[in-house]
C-alpha cells in the first residue's frame, strides 16, 4: 500500500506553483509526477479518477483538477490556493516574455533548442499515459476503450465533445457492470492490492 499525506494549504500553493512552473508543453506529466510520486498527495488510482473528471469538463485539464482537489482538501481557500499557485507565476513570466519575444525569436539557437524541447515534451506526455496505464492495470475492456478514444481523436479526428459524450457513458457502463460482477464474490476472496 502506498500511503498518502495530506498537504497543508502552503503545500498546495507551492506544490501547484511547482507544477505550473515546470509545465513545458502542458502540465500533464509534471502534475502526476509531483502529486503522486514526489509528494504522495493521492494514490495513482485516486489521481487517475480525479483527472478523468477534469478531462470530461471543459477548460484547462489541470486547472479543473486544481479546483476540485483544492476544494476536496480545504474548500474555497484550498481551491484558490491551488489555482493561484498553478497559474500565477507562469502568467507573469509569459507577459514578460511577450514583451521580449521580438528579440528572442530571431535567435537561431533558441529556436533550435525549442524544437528539441517540443519533441521531448510530446514524449513526456505519451510516456505519462503509458506509465499511468501500466500502473493502474485496467481491465481489457478499459484498455480497449482507451485505445478507441485515442484512435477516434487522432486518426478519425472526431470532435472532442462527441468523444466525451460517447466515451464517458460507455466507460461508466462497463465499469458498473464489472463492479456488479465482482461484488457477489465472498468477502476476502480477493485481497485488495494498493498501487505498486
Amino acid at each position: 500500500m502506498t500511503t498518502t499525506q495530506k498537504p497543508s494549504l502552503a503545500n498546495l500553493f507551492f506544490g501547484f506553483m511547482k507544477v505550473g512552473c515546470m509545465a513545458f508543453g502542458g502540465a500533464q506529466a509534471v502534475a502526476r509526477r509531483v502529486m503522486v510520486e514526489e509528494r504522495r498527495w493521492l494514490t495513482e488510482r485516486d489521481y487517475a479518477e480525479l483527472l478523468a473528471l477534469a478531462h470530461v469538463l471543459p477548460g484547462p485539464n489541470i486547472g479543473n483538477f486544481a479546483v476540485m482537489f483544492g476544494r476536496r482538501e480545504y474548500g474555497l481557500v484550498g481551491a484558490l490556493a491551488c489555482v493561484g499557485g498553478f497559474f500565477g507565476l507562469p502568467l507573469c513570466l509569459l507577459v514578460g516574455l511577450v514583451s521580449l519575444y521580438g528579440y528572442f525569436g530571431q535567435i537561431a539557437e533558441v529556436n533550435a533548442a525549442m524544437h528539441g524541447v517540443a519533441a521531448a515534451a510530446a514524449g513526456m506526455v505519451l510516456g505519462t499515459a503509458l506509465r499511468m496505464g501500466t500502473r493502474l492495470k485496467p481491465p481489457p475492456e478499459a484498455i480497449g476503450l482507451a485505445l478507441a478514444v485515442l484512435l477516434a481523436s487522432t486518426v478519425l479526428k472526431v470532435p472532442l465533445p462527441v468523444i466525451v459524450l460517447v466515451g464517458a457513458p460507455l466507460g461508466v457502463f462497463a465499469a458498473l457492470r464489472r463492479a456488479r460482477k465482482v461484488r457477489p464474490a465472498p468477502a476476502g476472496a480477493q485481497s485488495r492490492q494498493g498501487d505498486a
Partner: protein
Amino acid sequence: MPFWLDMFLLFASLSLVAVGGANVLAPEMHRQLVDIRQLMDEATFSQLLALAQAAPGPNILSGSIMGYWIGGVPGLLGATLGLLGPTAVLAWLIAGLTKRLAHAPWLKPAQAGLVPLALGLVGASGLVMAQAAASFPLAPVITVLATLYVWLAPLNPLWALLVGGVLGLVLL
C-alpha cells in the same frame, strides 16, 4: 460594452466548449481572433502560440497573452478571467456534487469508468504534440526516447526536456 468585458465573454465562450483543454482551444481561438474578428495576423498568432507552448506554464495561458497582445492589461485580465473563471465554477460545482454523492455505491465505479477516457485523451494529446513537433528528421527519435524514459524510468521527467533541448541545439 467595455473592452475587458468583450474579451471576457469571447474567451469564456471559447473555454466553455474546450473539452480536452488547451489543445482544443487553439483552432477555435484562431478562427475567432484571426479569421472572424481580425484582431491579429496569422504570423503573430502562431508566434504567440509557440511562445506559450515553449515557455513553462499551462498552455491555456496562450489565450491570456493573446488578450494582452490585443488590449494590454485590460485585455490580459478579461481574457484570463474568461478562460479560467466559468470553467473553474463548473469544476467547483461538480466537485461538490461528487462529495455529496461520496457514499453512493455506484460513484466509485462510475468515476473509475472515466479513467480509460483520460488515458486515451492524454495519449492523443501526446500524439498530436509529437506530430506538431516533427519539424526535423530526428524529432520522432527524440519523442520516442522521451516516451520510453518517462514510461520506464522512475526519475524526474524534466531531464527528457533538457536532453531534447540540447539535441535540438546540436542537430539543427
